[in-house]
């Protein structure tokens, strides 16, 4: 475990060194491909002098708000649709259709409706998070084995008891897998939303850097976005482990 982690870190170091060495040996313009050393300098000054932080916060807040909104609604709809099967049959094709539409293509119309800035970006992010939660909740809530459902019937459980004490807990591993997907998509949504509509944030900064042909800054921003994404992902994994202490058996099978 530790060995493989060490190897994977050394792989990164080797790749970065090859990149640096290749640039030193050839005459590729630093304007097109910046050397890693220069990227690290920009990253470091950006973080220590603080001009990157406001953008980081904006993007983080958009990601979290969009994620919270989209996944809450997705979860609630998922529970509703899994419980009311006639509703599911009627609505499902439309939900599917809405997911085939590229959400970012909706960006311009959202900007017309909600204006440039935070609101539009949060809505785009929420739209992206909605579906993974919805789909996994519907599948998860319906995943309780027949014997367990019969058990709750035999025991005279009410519909609500069956939902909250059996179906949702039984589906939790799948629901949380949806959360994991949604968190990563939320960050993508926020960054790309900023491409279209943001004045602030990491995505908007990438567009601004592009305008100035500042590829070094662009790479620095990629690194920050990647780190934020990995932190979010790790956070959901930690939360998942906490919540799923008793579930191992199902995960194994």
């Amino acid at each position, binding site marked *: 475990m530790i060995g493989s982690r060490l190897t994977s870190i050394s792989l990164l170091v080797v790749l970065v060194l090859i990149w640096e060495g290749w640039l030193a040996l050839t005459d590729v313009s630093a304007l097109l491909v910046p050397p890693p050393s220069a990227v690290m300098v920009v990253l470091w000054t950006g973080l220590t002098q603080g001009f990157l932080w406001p953008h980081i916060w904006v993007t983080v807040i958009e990601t979290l708000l969009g994620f919270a909104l989209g996944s809450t609604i997705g979860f609630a709809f998922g529970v509703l649709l899994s419980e009311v099967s006639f509703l599911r049959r009627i609505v499902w094709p439309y939900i599917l259709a809405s997911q085939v539409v590229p959400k970012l293509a909706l960006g311009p119309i959202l900007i017309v409706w909600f204006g440039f800035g935070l609101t539009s970006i949060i809505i785009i992010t929420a739209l992206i998070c909605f579906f993974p939660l919805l789909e996994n909740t519907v599948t998860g809530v319906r995943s309780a084995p027949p014997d*367990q459902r*019969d058990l709750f019937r*035999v025991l005279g459980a009410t519909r609500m008891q069956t939902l909250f004490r059996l179906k949702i807990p039984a589906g939790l591993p799948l629901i949380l897998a949806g959360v994991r997907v949604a968190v990563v998509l939320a960050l993508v949504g926020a960054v790309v939303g900023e491409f279209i509509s943001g004045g602030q944030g990491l995505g908007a900064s990438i567009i601004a850097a592009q305008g100035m042909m500042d590829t070094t800054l662009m790479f620095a921003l990629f690194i920050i976005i990647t780190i934020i994404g990995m932190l979010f992902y790790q956070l959901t994994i930690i939360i998942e482990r906490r919540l799923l202490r*008793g579930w191992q058996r199902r995960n194994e099978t």
Partner: protein
Amino acid sequence: MTDRLSFLKIDQVGFAYHGDAPILADVSLSLAPGDFHCLVGRSGCGKTSLLKIVGGLLTPTSGSVSITGMPVNGPSRQVGFVFQTPSLLEWRTVLDNVLLPIALHRSVNPSDYDRANDLLSQMGIEDHAERYPHQLSGGQQSRVALARALITEPSLLLMDEPFAALDAITREDLQNDLLWLAQTQGTTILFVTHDIAEAVYLSSHVSIMQAGCIARSMTIDLPNRQQGGGRYHPKIIKLCNEIRAALMPIAGARMP
């Protein structure tokens, strides 16, 4: 059998899924209090459907079921059910699983905890009370499922091949535990199995089911089974052969 005091009465029950061939046809059965009644049959003979009808999980298309004279219209709290799989909630501890039937209807009080712990220790798994189901062996999980079914002290216990997935030795242990618990609590049991030896060893009555009908019912009268060794009593072997013959399409065709 109709002359005996009837606790559970299954009266000319028929069952079919809409538009399909009937699964049960004209099944009648009567159990006296304290009976241990086994339904033996091949897969697909309708024995599980019959059990689910008695448990109120399925509604018969014809006929009726009554317990102490009260017709069965749905799940009842005096009936316990043990399924083919232990079907424990894997996110709850063993103790919480055992207490589930109570927790669904009222708050659990200290005497419930005492009773749950009692049941667990009677089955020798009291040390596992705070563990999660996945930390238990298959036999231990089946014991928890049995404890869960008994916590409400049901007067009728329905069991659907509960030990089918266990190894032979664990199964024998559980059979003995079950016999002992059933006798101390005076529970009436309707037990579905395809294992002839299990049926003969456990029960006071065996009914052989074939193609949705009861082909034959017999009373098993054995010397005291609690003294061990009874499992391989010549009389048991003889009864097993008799049942096996009755289950064969052509009587006695492939007797070992």
